[in-house]
């Protein structure tokens, strides 16, 4: 039976963990603490410098393009969902910049209307003529695929603090806990350590709890507590069983 259970465990673990530890996506670490390029933005309020935005409050910068048939729409939708669910009291703005030179402001506004993002006025949509400078300052490298008439790119969210420095980056579609860490980071809250993005988080001890901003226990911690539970279970079982043994010993002595 033990062998069967063991192979089951292996099988279970096999399907949940399939990545070696060193293969993390390091692009999230790129350009950390570098200054974002202070480019001229074209928004519905007219022109402004990017620094005008971050000087008033920290910002999250999302890079998208309106013709995208891939990740851009789900990325923005998920971001707005997560922001709504998180309902953070911290002040910050979201800046969506198109990295496609042929996008116009109205293309972006259409996108906003379609997705229903900017209901509270927290979001700003912008195009810029200096997109290359912006891209390279945050380490974003979209590649034009002429066959599909699409950019080949990753979803990227960049957190900028009030001084214009990149505090944190998130690539791909990410959960609410990462967003919480991002918002703490752009408000210069120090987090002494963090796990690197990798698929293998099954047995980690803690995951970040967005509700409290603290790390909450996950399966790994259960494994850590398991020996205590098992030992106390064993002791209790022995204690109950031992009543019988003591009775037997006493009877034996009485005989």
């Amino acid at each position, binding site marked *: 039976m033990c062998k069967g259970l063991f192979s089951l465990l292996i099988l279970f673990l096999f399907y949940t963990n399939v990545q070696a*530890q*060193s*293969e*993390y996506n*390091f*692009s*999230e*670490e*790129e*350009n*950390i*603490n570098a200054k974002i390029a202070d480019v001229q933005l074209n928004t519905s309020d007219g022109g402004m410098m990017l620094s005008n935005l971050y000087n008033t409050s920290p910002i999250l910068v999302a890079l998208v393009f309106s013709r995208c048939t891939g990740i851009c729409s789900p990325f923005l939708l998920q971001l707005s969902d997560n922001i709504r669910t998180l309902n953070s009291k911290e002040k910050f703005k979201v800046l969506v910049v198109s990295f496609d030179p042929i996008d116009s402001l109205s293309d972006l506004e259409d996108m906003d209307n379609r997705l229903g993002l900017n209901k509270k006025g927290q979001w700003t949509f912008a195009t810029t003529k200096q997109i290359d400078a912006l891209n390279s300052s945050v380490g974003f490298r979209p590649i034009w695929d002429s066959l599909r008439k699409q950019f080949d790119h990753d979803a990227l969210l960049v957190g900028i*603090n009030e*001084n214009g*420095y990149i505090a944190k980056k998130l690539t791909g579609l990410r959960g609410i806990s990462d967003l919480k860490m991002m918002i703490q980071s752009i408000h*210069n809250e*120090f*987090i*002494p*350590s*963090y*796990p*690197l993005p*990798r698929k*293998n988080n099954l047995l980690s001890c803690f995951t970040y709890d967005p509700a409290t901003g603290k790390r909450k226990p996950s399966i790994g911690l259960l494994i850590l507590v398991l020996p205590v539970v098992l030992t106390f279970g064993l002791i209790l079982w022995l204690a109950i069983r031992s009543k019988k043994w003591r009775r037997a010993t006493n009877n034996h002595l009485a005989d």
Partner: protein
Amino acid sequence: MNDHQFILIIFLAAFIIITAVFFLTYRSSLRPEEKSDGIKKPLQKRFYFLIALTIVLVILLSVTIPKSPYFKYSDQTPAKVVFVDAMQYYFFMSEQAIDPAKPSGADSIIIPVGQPVEFRVTSLDVNHGFGIYNSDAQLVTQTQAMPGYVNRLRWKFDTPGTYHILCLEYCGANHPNMRTSFIVK
């Protein structure tokens, strides 16, 4: 007097006091049998001893806990961020993020004197240590390099010079030779 000397003096003082108490206790037991009068009211004395010990421990706790290294310089923006990827038996250090697929580091790292800097330390294989030693071979500060996690260590170097980094977690046969250095100026 630096931290290390202070720690050693405290320890040696405790060592001498404990040895003296045991020696005197031993001496006191060499008396003739009829004179065995022991300690009066041992229970009461033990109670006072425990109370005194508790008070000392609580004071020590409240003094030392706030000095924990985790949040040093946490309210300041670091003047420089250095990425560190440890790997059997190298430290890659760079001001840019390091690609784990083809890790490489800068030839030399220069840290500004008197300004907070941050080391983002991780490992690409096994657990390593990241111990910063000054030019007098004294351990300044340290953190661990754990695969899958980044530890952020902040520090302010007030003395210019060459600092050495030694691996402080046993990582294999070549562990003592795993080292690098940076310059503070």
